């Protein structure tokens, strides 16, 4: 996995993204405006935050299907802590984020302690966390948040949406951790060959536990941004988020078998998806037609990757 080889997929993706942007810009003159692009950035922030953590998860050879439910649960808890328990809103935010982070830790604990395959463990917690959100909220939404709270989802700093700054900062941190630190090296090693990683003195279980916990934390963070953006809390928030996130990560070149992937790739994958969604809808394709395109792109990208690998004799 030399740097050049590593970047090959990312290069293809970058070219693809540029072409998509160019085509979409030519289809609609509304597409390539600063306003539209910033707005699109705002829309992809929540998926983006979760996708950063999901990249780590998938690089270790795991998967986390429960991120959407953690987002929903955190959103509900935020509302409940603030409105029903009467906590001050900043404190309610912290408490809700702590709960979401804990939910992620529980995933990691089940996976590392009991050796349940991540797919199944998080499928179960997907149902459990969403069920808790539904049970606690009983389908009642929470509204009436104070004005200052909307800053996280609607505010701007220096003309750029707040959550884009947040996403940018998180991206840089994630890229540095995965690409440049011992933790990142351990993440790749676990995904590529867990036994050899253990035999090399890597703390496999601790690393995985951190990663699933981080997935919970970033999902919870995304929940706060989401609630602030749409000004209300509902228990179905984040339903299907895992699909968008996994699609972005896998499209970004992260191998579903683990051991391979980069943050840059994930970001490019997310941009491509968001651009397709937006561009297609601007050029008149109905909202849900874009989902079809995303499904096709996901299968196509993996298929191309699998064939590419086979040709290399991998």
């Amino acid at each position, binding site marked *: *996995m*030399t*740097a050049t080889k590593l970047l090959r997929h990312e290069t293809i993706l970058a070219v693809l993204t540029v072409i998509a942007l160019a085509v979409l810009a030519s289809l609609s003159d509304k597409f390539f405006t600063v306003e539209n692009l910033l707005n699109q950035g705002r829309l992809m922030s929540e998926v983006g935050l979760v996708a950063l953590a999901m990249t780590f998860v998938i690089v270790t050879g795991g998967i986390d299907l429960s991120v959407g439910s953690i987002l929903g649960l955190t959103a509900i808890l935020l509302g409940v802590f603030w409105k029903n328990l009467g906590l001050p809103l900043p404190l309610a935010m912290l408490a809700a984020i702590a709960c979401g982070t804990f939910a992620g830790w529980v995933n990691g604990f089940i996976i590392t302690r009991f050796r349940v395959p991540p797919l199944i463990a998080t499928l179960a917690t997907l149902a459990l966390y969403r069920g808790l959100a539904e049970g606690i909220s009983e389908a009642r939404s929470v509204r009436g948040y104070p004005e200052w709270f909307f800053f996280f989802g609607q505010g701007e700093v220096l003309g750029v949406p707040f959550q884009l700054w947040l996403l940018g900062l998180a991206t840089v941190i994630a890229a*540095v951790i995965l690409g*440049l*630190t*011992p933790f*990142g*090296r*351990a993440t*790749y*090693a676990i995904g*590529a*060959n867990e*036994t*050899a*990683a*253990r*035999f*090399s*003195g*890597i*703390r496999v279980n601790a690393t995985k536990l951190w990663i699933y916990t981080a997935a919970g934390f970033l999902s919870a963070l995304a929940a706060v941004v989401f609630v602030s953006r749409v000004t209300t809390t509902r228990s179905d928030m984040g339903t299907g988020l895992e699909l968008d996130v996994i699609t972005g990560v896998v499209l970004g070149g992260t191998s579903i078998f683990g*051991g*391979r992937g980069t943050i840059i790739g994930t970001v490019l994958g997310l941009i491509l998806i968001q651009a397709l969604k937006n561009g297609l809808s601007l050029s008149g394709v109905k909202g849900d037609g874009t989902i079809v395109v995303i499904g096709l792109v996901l299968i196509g990208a993996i298929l191309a990757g699998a064939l590419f690998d086979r040709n290399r004799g*991998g």
Partner: protein
Amino acid sequence: MTGKGTPGAHDVPSGNAASSLPIELRSVSKSFAGIRVVHSVSFDMHPGEVHALMGENGAGKSTMIKIMAGLHQADEGEILVNGRVVKFASPKDAHAAGIATVHQELLLFPELTVAENIFLGQTPKTRLGTIDWQKMRERSRQLLDSLDSGDLDIDQKVATLSVGNRQRIEIARALAQDARVLIMDEPTAALAEADVQRLMAIVRNLRDRGVAIVYVSHRMPEIFALADRVTVLRDGHHVATKNISDVDEPALVSMMVGRAIDRLYPAKQGTDGDVILELKDVSYRSVVRGISLKLKRGEILGLAGLVGSGRTETALTIFGITPATSGEILIDGKAQAIASPEAARDLGIAYIPEDRGSQGLIRMQTIEENVALANLKRLMRGFLVDAARVTAEAKNAITKFGIRARGPEQLVRQLSGGNQQKVVLGKWLATNPRILIMDEPTRGIDVGAKAEIHLLMRKLAGEGMAILMISSELPEVLGMSDRVLVMNGGRIVGEFDKEHATAEAVGTIMTRTFTNGEAA
């Protein structure tokens, strides 16, 4: 069974003496990646005989049995079944010709019942074409009873059975296919003593029914108790085929070992360093039993024994993969709890595992990524991995150990076995260990690279490294070790200094004590 010839089969007149042989190999050769592992070997089986196939690791035994089982195709030579030339393109063809294998890894379905495991793929049918469970259960019952295994419940799931019982199911499976040749690859390697006796009874039973049994094993007592004939291979060549009554144990050992040992190995030096590692009555569950040993600076201590004798398990316990359940491990005379590989590494212990591909290396990563893996903490600048130092470390390893590679960025999976092993060594020596455990250090490595690794081991010992070497190759154990410990049944059963460590002495105690049950 019908001797179904595959395309290209031509008839030899029946009535020919050769036509009754259930399988015969004539001048078979096989190469992998240009390296010849079997040189024009001939081998035949008579109905109702046990024919032992012997040789050291790498002698070509497993390639031979894989050719017979249809897993490999011979490059030269021919295979005859009942006097007809056949070609096995796949294991299916070999099955059709009446050749079955009891695999070492036991290819069974844990969640299905015993009866179904015996018949899966060729289940008895009712007139409607559906599976006839009643008949299947009855025939399973008969088959197992005929193998003196009346105690096996045919309706039980295989997952709950012991290895010995699973093996009997595989044998029953072969009988259900009407096999005339049964290949048994180290069938007793993973068996407890009582099961070994039982297996031997079953083998005799099969022989009496006319089944020809190819029996691969290292264990002398079994060979002498069971075999009618024995064929010895060495370095892919056929050394001899003899009636068992014409050979004795020392003769077999010398046929297998063959070459003079001393000149192939670097000269030993005298060592009288301090004890650096000491084990006091260390146990792990029931696989490592009360091991006590002392390892000195500058010494190469050989740990000999058969596969499954507890050698590797002892190493894993010292290295913290399976932390000791009782006893004490002392480093420099201080008791240490080694609960994980990190802890072992931080105490200056390095372990070169026996299975390079799955335990030693990350094959899809580069040399420099692999070399850095055990040593990341030391290769940091601030919070980050210092990429320049990682590259420097890898380059250093490449020159120091003579790794033949394009550069530190080459993928490990593209290297040869010997060079891969040097990468593992490079990774662990970069941690500056004082105790080096090497498990099968030259397995699957060609002769040239072998010598280089041996030389390196001796050099490291000369610089004061304490080396614990585990090996199945007797010549390597004898040639390299300053002292030899022999393990058997999870215990240490013998110790030899270099003057007294001979192939006969060590080989005998490795194999003999086990079957006599003295290990207890």
